[in-house]
């Protein structure tokens, strides 16, 4: 007899209150163990013994509890995942506060590093198990119920998926890709959530510009306090504030890139919000100002400035790569993969997308540096004989003019076929 999916499975057990036999769904709150997961806190910034001990104690609790969880049979595991709020908070706190490698904190004591590695693996395996609806021939959840369980219980949400990509995407990309794709396939509501999240990402861009005094805070007619009128430019702001802005930019650029790198199918949803041109505008407004602010501060903490400049350069590269992933996914890949009949729409998208960013000269230079626009145009020319040469020439000319008056130091373009 074929096994039933867990969501349809019933079990017969003794009622703890009455002692009589009863039949209950296998997924039932009573099946949850009283475990009490603690919240994750990151390793301390210093090596003070008390703080290190507290970190180790807390982390050991979590690592032991996750090992216990991963050793549970399928149905017990899912009861714990669905009904134990402390587990969900524990996992969420790890995603929030686990140090990213680019945070560049001081090297922790070896005991802390070892514990952090143990935790890192256990957290990943827990998320892997939670994104798997078919564990074996006999242990599975029906796809529809699985999608509802994940979504209705916030087992995954968009910020969690972004965190997973930035924490685990480098070394475990292929597996993570399967996990995230499966989550979106089984629960299409996550696309709606992504659609709702993109405006907040764009708001983060606006907030960074506001912090840099490069964008006013809307068109409110309410009276402003005098202090609010004083906008701090990156060049004038205290070094620590500049540092915060650059750290925020660095995390934002890296996290966005890590997510789209693992899950490029999200690109269409991003572009529904005109993301490419808004990204280019943001780049154009923020990067030259921050660049210049760091360069001008030659009298201040040189080590910190060098670090900030490296982070800014990294952020630039990631933002440019985000743009490229979007272009690649939205226009270039469909052109390469489609038959001759239906590529015109994608070519039109490409031309419109580039036309919309031609005034962002600094962005255009940096993009062209890593992903020569001429190569993409050449691809279009090969794909379609009916290409509007006037428009492509206009785009190429605009790219060339963006380089005018600039010492062109072309780096090796990223070797990557679209």
């Amino acid at each position: 007899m074929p096994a039933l999916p867990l969501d349809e499975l019933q079990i017969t057990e003794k009622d703890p209150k009455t002692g009589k036999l009863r039949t209950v769904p296998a997924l039932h709150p009573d099946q949850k163990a009283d475990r009490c997961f603690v919240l994750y806190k990151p390793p301390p910034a210093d090596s003070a013994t008390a703080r290190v001990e507290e970190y180790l104690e807390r982390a050991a609790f979590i690592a032991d509890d996750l090992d216990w969880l991963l050793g549970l049979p399928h149905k017990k595991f899912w009861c714990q995942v669905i009904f134990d709020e402390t587990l969900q908070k524990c996992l969420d706190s790890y995603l929030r506060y686990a140090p990213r490698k680019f945070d560049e904190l001081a090297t922790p004591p070896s005991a802390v590093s070892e514990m952090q590695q143990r935790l890192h693996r256990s957290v990943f395996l827990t998320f892997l198990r939670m994104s798997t609806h078919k564990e074996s021939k006999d242990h599975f959840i029906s796809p529809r119920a699985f999608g509802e369980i994940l979504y209705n219980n916030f087992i995954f949400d968009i910020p969690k998926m972004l965190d997973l990509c930035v924490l685990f995407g480098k070394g475990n990309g292929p597996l993570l890709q399967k996990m995230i794709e499966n989550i979106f396939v089984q629960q299409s509501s996550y696309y709606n959530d992504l659609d709702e999240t993109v405006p907040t990402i764009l708001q983060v861009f606006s907030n960074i510009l506001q912090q840099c005094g490069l964008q006013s805070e809307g068109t409110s007619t309410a009276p402003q306090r005098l202090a609010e009128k004083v906008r701090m430019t990156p060049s004038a702001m205290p070094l620590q504030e500049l540092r915060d802005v650059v750290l925020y930019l660095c995390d934002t650029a890296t996290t966005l890139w890590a997510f789209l790198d693992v899950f490029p199918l999200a690109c269409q949803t991003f572009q529904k919000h005109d993301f490419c041109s808004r990204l280019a505008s943001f780049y154009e407004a923020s990067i030259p100002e921050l660049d210049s602010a760091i360069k001008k501060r030659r009298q201040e903490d040189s080590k910190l400035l060098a670090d900030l400049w490296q982070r800014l350069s990294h952020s630039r590269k990631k933002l440019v790569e985000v743009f490229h992933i979007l272009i690649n996914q939205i226009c270039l890949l469909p052109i390469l993969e489609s038959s001759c009949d239906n590529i015109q729409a994608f070519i039109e998208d490409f031309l419109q997308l580039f036309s919309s960013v031609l005034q962002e000269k600094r962005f255009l230079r940096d993009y062209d540096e890593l992903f020569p626009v001429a190569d993409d145009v050449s691809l279009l020319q090969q794909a379609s004989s009916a290409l509007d040469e006037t428009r492509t020439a206009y785009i190429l000319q605009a790219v060339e003019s963006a380089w005018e008056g600039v010492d062109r130091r072309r780096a090796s373009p990223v070797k990557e076929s679209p």
Partner: protein
Amino acid sequence: MNDMDLPRLTGALRSFSNVTKQDDYNEESADLMLKRSKLQKQISDLGLTWNKIVKFVDDNLEKKEVQIVNEDLKDILRAAKQIVGTDNGQEAIESGAAFLFKTFHLKDCVGHNETKALNQMFGPFPSSSATAACNATCRIASHFSEDRLTALVQMTEEQNGDRVLFGKNIVFSFDMHDLDHFEELPINGEADAQKVISLDY
């Protein structure tokens, strides 16, 4: 800067988007204390209770020996009382005493691992009490073979041996995204600006 305050994109998404569960984390400030008490309960639920230890002694020793060992058992209970405190009642003291017996039953002294285990279970504790409990357990253990002691502790332990951890064969990489080398993207800014900054960091 506090590590927890590092500015994150996902922090903003959690705060300002409508797609996450809005959890309140403030109430969890005392979660370590709660966890320790849960752990004590878990240990007692495992089955190695103080009564089982007393019965084991009664069943396996001559009456004369039992009288001597009873003094050692009292020492362990006394130590547990000092470590656990009296606020939690006799049950918690006996549960703590069973844990001390379990921790020290094959040890000569309070080593690093034992200190860690006690710390995890009880939080900070007086070392003299731990030493007293260790010595008393040693004296009790001297009346039994190692196999019999192991059998006493193991028969009550959770049956973990045959559990298969999900993902134990998954190849996991600890590699994480780091800052990219910026040489790949030189400054395409104004020509004069490039002369100001040194790339030689």
